[in-house]
């Protein structure tokens, strides 16, 4: 019987009412009295030397307040990177300066070199046309392998090369892996590309900077997944504003998918300019501008080799990856191809020896950073593609080959050879569930039916692991993170019993206002409607690290549980006083405090009132009030896993791929709100279908972005995806967080691309096609079928 409230219930989302009636408040909906408008002037060449910028005509244009260039930012810092990766020789990565406005050179199409601030947006845009910039075009570095070849043009003249780092993991295993591969019965090799993507949350980025000279305080409204992180990075590293003088507000945010984690130059600009001009400054990105200024995702080129014995048991795995950093290091960019990728290469399998090499490369393209899954989709894609290819080469059924190598549930906790310890999982169970919900047994009949219509039908599976609940601070500190990755919550019980929960997590579509309230209400045995979730404002919430890496319920939720436990402990003391009972005899359930073995009871509301009107109260023992804060730092990552199956039909005449069915059997541990969890999977899978079949961010050899709008960058639309079959009934709860939750935000985008590609390769099995790089466009599929791939 499904629950109708609390943990495990599909409570309807309370935030929906404002969104459905036009009452959401997104950053662009905020207009501050007296605001001015910023228009960024961006490079239209990929690489160029700035000889001069003449802004005089623009500054004289009607309505213009000021035109800013790099010279105005001489006294402020660059946009910082939050992670330093150490290379395989023990040296820190090469880290170039990222100025707020381009200094000396422009390094990608979209790199801003001037900003016009004016009374209206149209005045700013018109004046921008009057800027005379003498920018001498230089050779652009676009291809990653060419970028690290001897003699390549350098993106940053002050670095020794375009190589950010050459990372080896686990470096001590390097030779043993080489040996194992040399001596193996069979080695399957695959070269593949993980296509460059643009995250494309539907709300473009916006920043509104405001300065109040009365209190010397700055406020920034911004489209962020983590306002405290922005406050820390921008305040401490760019503008030198102490945190108590800087408030960052991220109100309703229209999707993030990673690209709204990072601190961007536009945020620093608006904050800085608001003080310089003594006027609020607003910037709203257009979609075209988003394509050339939001951090992109993925963009890996990999060679992977899997060594097996006669039975198909995995012996060793070796990968060699080039990862694009773009022109500058975005906030978390260096961590994505390394610690969020190499550590996942064991997948669900027992592979005794693994070596991962990653070369991170600077190019004259937009910075690349985390996009939904961040490193884990790249790992899963390689692994699940090579396993499928290996199955074909070995003549073993792909499901069977996976099962032969699965870590068995009896082996948890399981330490992989790539430095992580999985706490729980049951991969055979999710695979069983997957085969059931996808009706694999009926596939041959469906295939024959397709064949009768002249279509090629294929069935593909993938099984993923991901590391969520990011992350233990002491561990990530050793790995190069320049921040902790705990989360915080303050539970404020009001005098009449209603509750405000201030969380450091941020909701930009995930429904925290509902699911977080379910947790607190369940713990206190009160109505969910009495609990309000406050997020997205550094002045109202405790220092928190925000939402990404499927961490909110696992880390933020755990902080909230700890704070609520403190509330219950204190409330029991108050209740024991009111009931004149020993504290150890007080029980709390369903919003009532009782004394075991008696008929004494007090209600939740009475205890709350007593805490704030402490006339009859143990003042000698405890303070009045009922408000507690907890910071939670996880002991480990969480490890959601699952099996995904895709069924496709390929039209041999055109190469068109249609996704007929998609099934997902996930193990997320315990689930707070099944409706929300399923919605997260749907959305992730649709993005995976986008990556596999449609989306591709393409630069030409001169560094011009060929896919700079929705005319050229194919976003999945309603007719591109089927109804999904999703299941999360296989649940092995996380052992180290209080809710037993694992996180569900990224799984769909991680597990789906290899399942789709495997299905297409299966459909083309009669055509000798071994691999096609994503996106599997009709042109690419047709070419591969005709030996022109």
């Amino acid at each position, binding site marked *: 019987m499904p629950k109708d409230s609390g943990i495990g219930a*599909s409570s*309807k*989302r309370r*935030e*929906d*009412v*404002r*969104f*459905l*009636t*036009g*009452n*959401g*408040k*997104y950053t*662009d*909906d905020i*207009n501050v009295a007296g605001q001015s408008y910023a228009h960024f002037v961006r490079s239209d060449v990929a690489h160029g030397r700035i000889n001069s910028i003449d802004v005089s005509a623009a500054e004289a244009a009607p309505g213009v307040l000021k035109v800013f260039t790099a010279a105005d930012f001489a006294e402020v810092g660059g946009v910082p990177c939050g992670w330093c990766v150490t290379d395989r020789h023990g040296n820190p990565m090469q880290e170039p300066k990222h100025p707020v406005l381009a200094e000396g050179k422009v390094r990608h199409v979209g790199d801003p070199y001037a900003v016009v601030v004016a009374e209206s947006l*149209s005045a700013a845009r018109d004046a921008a046309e009057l800027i005379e910039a003498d920018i001498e075009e230089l050779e652009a570095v676009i291809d990653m392998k060419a970028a690290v070849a001897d003699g390549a043009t350098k993106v940053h003249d002050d670095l020794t090369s375009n190589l950010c780092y050459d990372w080896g993991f686990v470096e001590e295993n390097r030779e043993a892996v080489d040996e194992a591969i040399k001596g193996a019965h069979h080695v399957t090799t695959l070269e593949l590309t993980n296509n460059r993507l643009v995250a*494309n*949350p*539907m*709300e*473009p980025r916006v920043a509104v900077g405001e300065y109040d000279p009365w209190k010397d305080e700055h406020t920034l409204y911004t489209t962020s997944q983590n306002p405290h992180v922005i406050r820390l990075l921008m305040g401490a590293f760019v503008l030198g504003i102490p945190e108590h003088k800087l408030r960052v507000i991220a109100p*309703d*945010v*229209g*999707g993030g*998918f990673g690209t709204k984690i990072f601190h961007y130059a536009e945020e620093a600009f608006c904050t800085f300019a608001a003080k310089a001009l003594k006027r609020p400054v607003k910037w709203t990105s*257009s*979609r*075209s501008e988003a394509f050339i200024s939001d951090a992109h995702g993925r963009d890996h080129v990999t060679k992977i080799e899997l060594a097996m014995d006669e039975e198909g048991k995995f012996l060793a795995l070796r990968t060699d990856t080039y990862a694009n950093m773009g022109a500058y290091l975005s906030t978390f960019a260096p961590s994505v191809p390394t610690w969020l990728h190499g550590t996942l290469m064991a997948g669900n399998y027992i592979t005794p020896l693994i070596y991962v090499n990653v070369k991170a490369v600077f190019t004259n393209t937009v910075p690349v950073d985390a996009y939904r899954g961040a490193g884990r989709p790249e790992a899963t894609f390689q692994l699940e593609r090579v396993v499928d290819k290996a199955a074909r080469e070995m003549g073993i059924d792909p499901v069977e080959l996976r099962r032969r190598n699965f870590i068995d549930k009896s082996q948890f906790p399981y330490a992989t050879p790539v430095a992580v310890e999985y706490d729980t999982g049951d991969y055979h169970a999710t695979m069983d569930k997957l085969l059931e919900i996808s009706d694999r047994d009926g596939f041959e009949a469906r295939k024959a039916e397709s064949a009768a219509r002249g279509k090629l039908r294929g069935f593909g599976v993938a099984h993923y692991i991901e590391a969520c609940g990011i992350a233990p601070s002491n561990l990530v500190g050793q790995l190069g993170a320049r921040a902790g990755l705990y989360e915080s919550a303050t539970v404020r019980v009001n005098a009449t019993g209603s509750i405000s929960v201030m969380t450091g997590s941020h909701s*930009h*579509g995930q*429904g925290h206002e509902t699911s977080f309230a379910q947790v607190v209400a369940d713990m206190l045995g009160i109505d969910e409607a009495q609990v309000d979730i406050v997020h997205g404002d550094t002045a109202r919430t405790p220092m928190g690290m925000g939402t990404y890496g499927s961490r909110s319920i696992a880390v933020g939720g755990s902080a909230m549980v700890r704070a609520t436990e403190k509330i219950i402990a204190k409330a029991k003391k108050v209740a024991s006083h009111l009931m004149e009972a020993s504290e150890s005899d007080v029980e709390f359930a369903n919003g009532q405090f009782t004394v075991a073995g008696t008929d004494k009871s007090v209600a939740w509301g009475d205890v709350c009132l007593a805490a704030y009107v402490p006339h009859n109260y143990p003042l000698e023992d405890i303070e009045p009030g009922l408000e507690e804060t907890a910071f939670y730092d996880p002991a480990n990552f969480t490890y959601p896993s699952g099996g995904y199956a895709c069924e496709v039909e390929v039209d041999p005449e055109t190469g068109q791929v249609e996704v007929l069915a998609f099934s997902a059997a996930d193990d997320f541990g315990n689930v707070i709100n*099944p*409706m*929300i*969890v*399923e*919605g997260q999977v*749907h*959305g*992730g*899978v*649709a*993005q995976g279908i986008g990556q596999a079949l449609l989306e591709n961010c393409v630069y030409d050899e001169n560094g011009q972005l060929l896919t700079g*709008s*929705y*005319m050229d960058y194919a*976003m*999945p*639309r*309603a*007719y591109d*995806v089927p*109804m*999904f*079959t999703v299941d999360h009934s296989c649940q092995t709860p996380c052992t180290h967080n209080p809710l037993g939750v694992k996180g569900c935000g990224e799984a*769909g985008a991680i597990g789906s691309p290899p399942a789709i590609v495997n299905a297409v390769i299966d459909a083309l099995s009669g055509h000798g096609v071994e691999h096609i790089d994503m996106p599997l466009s009709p042109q690419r599929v047709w070419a591969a079928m005709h030996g022109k791939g």
Partner: protein
Amino acid sequence: MTKVSMTVNGKAVSGEAEGRTLLVEFLREGQGLTGTHVGCDTSQCGACTVHVNGEAVKSCTMFAADAEGAEVTTIEGMANADGSLGTIQQAFQDYHGLQCGFCTPGMVMIAADLLKNNPNPTEHEIRDYLEGNICRCTGYHNIVKAIQAAAGQSVPAVAAE
């Protein structure tokens, strides 16, 4: 600048507009009706969808001046008279047809347009009709279900399939 007058959500309004002022700018900036969103600059995403004289229109693709004298309905005008959610809005909440909410006003407006023209659409017809509206969050699954439910079709409850 010229003066433009129209009826928005049943109320007569007027305001100044340049020749290049888009209807969406007139609504958002001039009228403070920020429920209508802008998600692109190439008429591709549908976040800006409103009704003009009863037809769904991308308000980023129409000049304010061209709506002179028109009857315009935006998401702010879609609730019932007592303020409760209208049928389509309620179905979106019941079937979890929204996540971040940014595409949602456009989705509700296009869904209303669909159901006016085709009160009992098939799944295929719904997906085709949503061609001009992009959602990055939901994977469309629950949007399709919400529209089916709003059409009175029997749809399995959320998380019960």
